[in-house]
């Protein structure tokens, strides 16, 4: 603010406000307007955060280096690049790191517990951490967790606790959400950039064709 403006502001803001309560509330009104503006969400202010995860010197804030590398490998196994990009290219690990950093302690613990479970199984079966296994061993290990256990077909005994499947499913859900809400993920599903696609046409088959 220039000196002259400062002077004018102090005259009007100080002396005049003391004279008339009306002006004081007009001033408060101006502050109020500014406060109101800050009540918009970033999206309502037009903030586009799509490139925020793409920064060159990105570092995880929640995961440690080992957890981050493990997550990159795991996510790219669960949603690999095919004829379309996979989880690694969609920076799934970076999004999960951002969201988990702001999660409740309980959810953070559960997420890290699930990652650790995979490493634990990897150590038990292959004497090495998951990220250092061969691609073939990684695949074998994940397949041992990827489907739910059934009970006994001989005795009818129900399947017991299934921590492998539970851990796998929870991690897969995180990875799926991170991937399919990314720009790459939306393209994978075929979504174009148009926000509207005409009038909903619904069923255009002849009456009685669905049986």
């Amino acid at each position: 603010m220039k000196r002259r403006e400062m002077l004018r502001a102090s005259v009007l803001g100080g002396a005049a406000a003391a004279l008339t309560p009306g002006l004081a509330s007009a001033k408060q009104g101006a502050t109020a307007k500014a406060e109101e503006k800050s009540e918009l969400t970033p999206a309502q202010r037009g903030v586009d955060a799509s490139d925020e995860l793409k920064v060159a010197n990105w570092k995880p804030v929640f995961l440690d280096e080992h957890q981050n590398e493990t997550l990159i490998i795991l996510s790219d196994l669960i949603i690999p690049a095919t004829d379309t990009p996979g989880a690694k290219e969609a920076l799934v690990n970076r999004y999960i790191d951002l969201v988990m950093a702001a999660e409740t302690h309980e959810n953070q613990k559960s997420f890290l517990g699930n990652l650790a479970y995979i490493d634990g199984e990897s150590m038990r079966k292959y004497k090495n951490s998951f990220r250092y296994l061969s691609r073939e061993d990684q695949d074998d290990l994940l397949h041992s967790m990827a489907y739910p256990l059934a009970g006994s077909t001989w005795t009818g005994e129900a399947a017991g606790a299934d921590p492998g499947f539970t851990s796998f499913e929870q991690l897969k859900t995180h990875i799926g959400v991170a991937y399919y809400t990314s720009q790459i993920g939306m393209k994978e599903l075929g979504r174009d950039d148009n926000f509207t696609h005409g009038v909903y046409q619904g069923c255009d088959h002849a009456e009685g064709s669905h049986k």
Partner: protein
Amino acid sequence: MSLFSFADDPLTKTYDAIVVGSGATGGWAAKQLSEAGLKVALLEAGRAVTPAEFTEHTPAYKLKYRDHDPEIARTRPIQKQCYACMEYNYTWFVNDLENPYSTPEDKPFTWQRLRVLGGRSLVWGRQSYRLSDNDFKAASRDGYDVDWPISYADLAPFYDIVEKYVGITGAAEGNEMLPDGQFLPPMKMSCGEILLRDKVKAKFGRTVTIGRAAVLTKAQNGRSACHYCGPCERGCRTFSYFSSPFTTVADAQNSGNCTVITNAVVAHVNMDNGSNKATGVTFVDRMTREVKEVRGKAVILCAQALESTRILLNSTTREYPNGLANSSGALGHYLMDHVTGGGAGGELPNMNEKPNANEPDRPNGIYIPRFRNSPSVKKSANFIRGYGYQGSGDAVFNFGAGGYGAVYKNAVKQGHYTIGIGAFGESLARWDNYIEIDKTLKDAWGIPALRISMTHGDNEKALMEDAAAQGAEMLEAAGAINIKMQARTEMPGMAIHELGTARMGNDPKKSVLTPFNQTHDVKNLFVMDGASFVSSACQNPTLTMMAITVRGCAKLIERFKTNDV
């Protein structure tokens, strides 16, 4: 002194009418009264909203947290229980830290509120159904509680007015439980929904119809027909769904007779004890915390059922020590909210349709009107009243597909055809479901907060169990597989259809309002919103609230003409 003159200060005048709240009903009250030539002050607790802040076309990947913003969990832990409270628009919803309420520990209640111009009409579900005399006269048929003091014939002309202006897309069905109305062309049904409709009609004789929604399928009043982008709750640049700021409130302002005062958090109604008349309201400026007063010849509360009653409960005088207009003692009682949690879902195996990310997104679903305890069927053995279903069927991406890798990625894209219906059941009016002023808790503006005591009872539970079983049976008739039932009784408040607490009635000893929404006790004080409902029926209530408001205003305008206010 011209620099310091505030001749236009809206608070120096005495208005004909003060309308508190700018949502679905407040907007209508402001429009009807100001267009009739009355001078109206429309008070809104929040700020104005402009189309520049609408985010309906913003894709999720542009959001920093893609709808997992931790700020929502921090400041809106209750509001986020509503699907419409998202990273896009969460500041439209109240900050729970600033707007507390209490409940008994064993009676959780979720209360979702917006404090911006237009209120919940910005994010509402838009489903719009008439009540019938099976609802207005339900007590005469089954003996529970009392009839409404008005009948369908009293309200029908006002339903017509509201529907024509709001714009309701829908199809006439001639159903005995669900009167038809003034409809714009119906939206289309999907193949799976058509299949369900035909099979349910053939096997059960029940109606499955396209939803009746407050969304334009033809342009009117400068509003465009829906362009099927999908998420109405983030705002609509073409004003295709009905929300008050861009329709009723805009009309009121254009009349030249309506002054909109935003950021006015109303604390209580002011009374002149000598004449037993309301003189206006006292409010706190939301931003500056200044306490201000606005004067009027009539005061009309349209603040939403619980908020309107809260204002009355906070307006005690020597004559009304238990809350203004509460000589009956009924104020605060008979709180209702539709019961939800019953329904069924499954897959239709023979639809041969793949999900399409670029399909027009229909902001509407299907509706199955109430069929239980209708005049033409045998009475249900273990419950009274009934429920209606909302639902939809479509090919969708299968994010829950099993396995991983290229197999999983492909299965997601191949998708599956799912269909589901969820019930909204009648919530019986009960004296012991009530609100009162919490003796210690206050909101951020120092206004005493509510204590809400409500549970769903055995009848509501039985309705949801029946809705699960009937839902499964109907989906099964359509050939659905992998059917799953839901027979829950969700926490009260979850339907966001709060009703009652200032019921209308002919008997001033047992009700708060007259059949024209005037308080029995104070001649120039009115409540025109869901608080006035006698029973909840099971239909989404906003359409009926608006019709009741227009009817109440018509009466009030007559009274102004004969100087009887």
